[in-house]
């Protein structure tokens, strides 16, 4: 009875996952906090309020996790809650239509050319760019988050990418 433990690879299989939404939300938070905060900051205006919105959004998601039906990704569902918290924070609870959101880089002085390139994009397309490149969301999740079809995300991001490429190439020529 006092023999040594099995090596991990030899162990009898135990929990593959603790399939608890709480654990999944915690894992999402630990893996994606920085990306979520940076993406939210483009809407809230600064990293401090973005952090607060992410904290509040994750707390709401954690508290109401039994309402998650698994019909879409957990990531997309949590993002919508976080995003709503950010908008409430910015507008003191007043609802804001998605089209009226003007996401922007928080510290424009760090890359004026990128700011200028982004400024050429309509606001919704810009938001998708931030969700893609800051929050690292996939197309399906961005579609859920922005409440559009996945095909729309693909087309929008393709256009945005082309526009950004053109702008940044021009910037490259100038420099």
């Amino acid at each position, binding site marked *: 009875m006092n*023999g040594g*433990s099995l090596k991990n690879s030899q162990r009898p*299989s135990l929990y593959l996952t603790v399939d*608890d939404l709480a654990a999944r939300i915690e894992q999402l938070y630990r893996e994606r906090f920085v990306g979520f*905060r940076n993406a939210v900051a483009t809407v809230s205006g600064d*990293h401090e309020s973005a952090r607060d919105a992410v904290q509040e959004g994750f707390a709401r998601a954690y508290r109401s996790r039994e309402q998650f039906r698994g019909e879409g990704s957990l990531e997309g569902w949590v993002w919508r809650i976080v995003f709503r918290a950010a908008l409430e924070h910015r507008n003191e609870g007043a609802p804001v239509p998605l089209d009226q959101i003007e996401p922007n880089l928080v510290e424009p002085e760090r890359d004026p050319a990128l700011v200028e390139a982004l400024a050429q994009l309509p606001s919704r397309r810009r938001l998708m760019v931030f969700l893609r490149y800051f929050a690292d969301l996939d197309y399906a999740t961005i579609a859920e988050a922005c409440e559009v079809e996945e095909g729309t995300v693909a087309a929008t991001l393709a256009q945005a990418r082309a526009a950004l490429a053109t702008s*940044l190439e021009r910037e490259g020529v100038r420099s």
Partner: protein
Amino acid sequence: MTEAIDLLIQTRFDAVANLADDGDWNDVLARARSAEPVDRTRSGPPLAYLRRRFTRVALIAAVVALALVVTAVAFGWPRTIIDFFTSPPAPRAIKNAIGIDNVGAPKGMNPRAIPGETRRIMTARFDDSGRHPDHPALHTLYVAPTRNGGFCYEWTNADGGCASAKNPETNAGLRATGPLGVTWSVTNGGYPLLVDGWVRTGATKTIEARFADGTTTTLPINWVSAPINAGFFVYPVPEEHQTRANALGSVVALDASGRVVGRQTFPLTKALDEDVMQTLPDGTKYSLPRSAIAARARKIISFRTTTGSRAYVWVMPRRGGGLCFLSNRMDGCPSAYWLARSPVFNGGVSGSTNPPLLFSGRAKPEVARIELRYQNGERERLTPIDGFVLTEIKPTHYARGKRLVAAVAFDRRGTAIFTQRYEPNTGGIYPCKKPTNRGYGLKMCP
């Protein structure tokens, strides 16, 4: 080309990203706890009281739970505590199952669970490799507090139980297991098959399964916050550990220094006592201990009950001495050692909400007669055959006031040498025409 552009854009975004990770999961948990979860399945005045009561408890519990989480981070133990009050409510069927623990408990053993406060804690998923084919992959844990400070729990597709608030160390019967409470099922060979249980918060750091071949494995503990204050585990023993050489021998609770603070052992069935399929002389097949010599079995009692079903008793010799018996109400294979130490008479009624209700028992050789005594003064004499009695309790004795209260054993001289008494008013034993609703979907004959 697209990938190159994508990489270029990503690089620009990475360069302006704020990489500082100022996240704080404990802050998220604290915010989550700042509002009580809404249980939409409950309503009505009696539960409103509970909700008020638990709102107050929740505030205290939130502070305690937060302190525990902080402690966990500081000391690295326990790794994660699942907050009871922010866990989602259990479905109605589970609340009913917990409620049945109350209303279905024998007299004096009601755990006083609070079914309406049952929460879904987590789900454990096991992969296919090594899992016994009879086992489902998912087990969901539900836990409810009790009114006396304990808890009741249920793992789906497994087992469950209740624990009182008393510290087990003060209970002599539970002293050996320490802070552990373990239940398990076994294979036909008697090897532990599915083990589940709980461990109270305290000194325990890990739970370890120890096998006969000297190997060990650590079982994940799911710690649950106040008012539960316990950790729960479930462990389907892998198929490769279903042999005598490497079967699960014990589950132990270890403290931070690796000292055993609680132990539940699983004595291995002796090879002769392992169940194997055997054939009786009339051709019927039964799972019997290897020690039972089925070829020499004799059917000593056989009759048709009032419902038309057949009641029977088979007896057969046991390898190595002793006796094996089999009936449609009892079976066993005691060795000569245990036969010598058995009581003068041991019998009882075994029934359900449906007839027939049978009385069966086993008597020592000195017993010449058994007398059944009923509440209404009626008596019935039985003569043991090879030490066994089996009879049907007639429907005229189903009603309260007419039930069995004692079995008296007499020797050959007519002297009463032993009396076994029965509680006549225990529900769920005597059949009835209309079972009464005991609550939580449980219908039982009174």
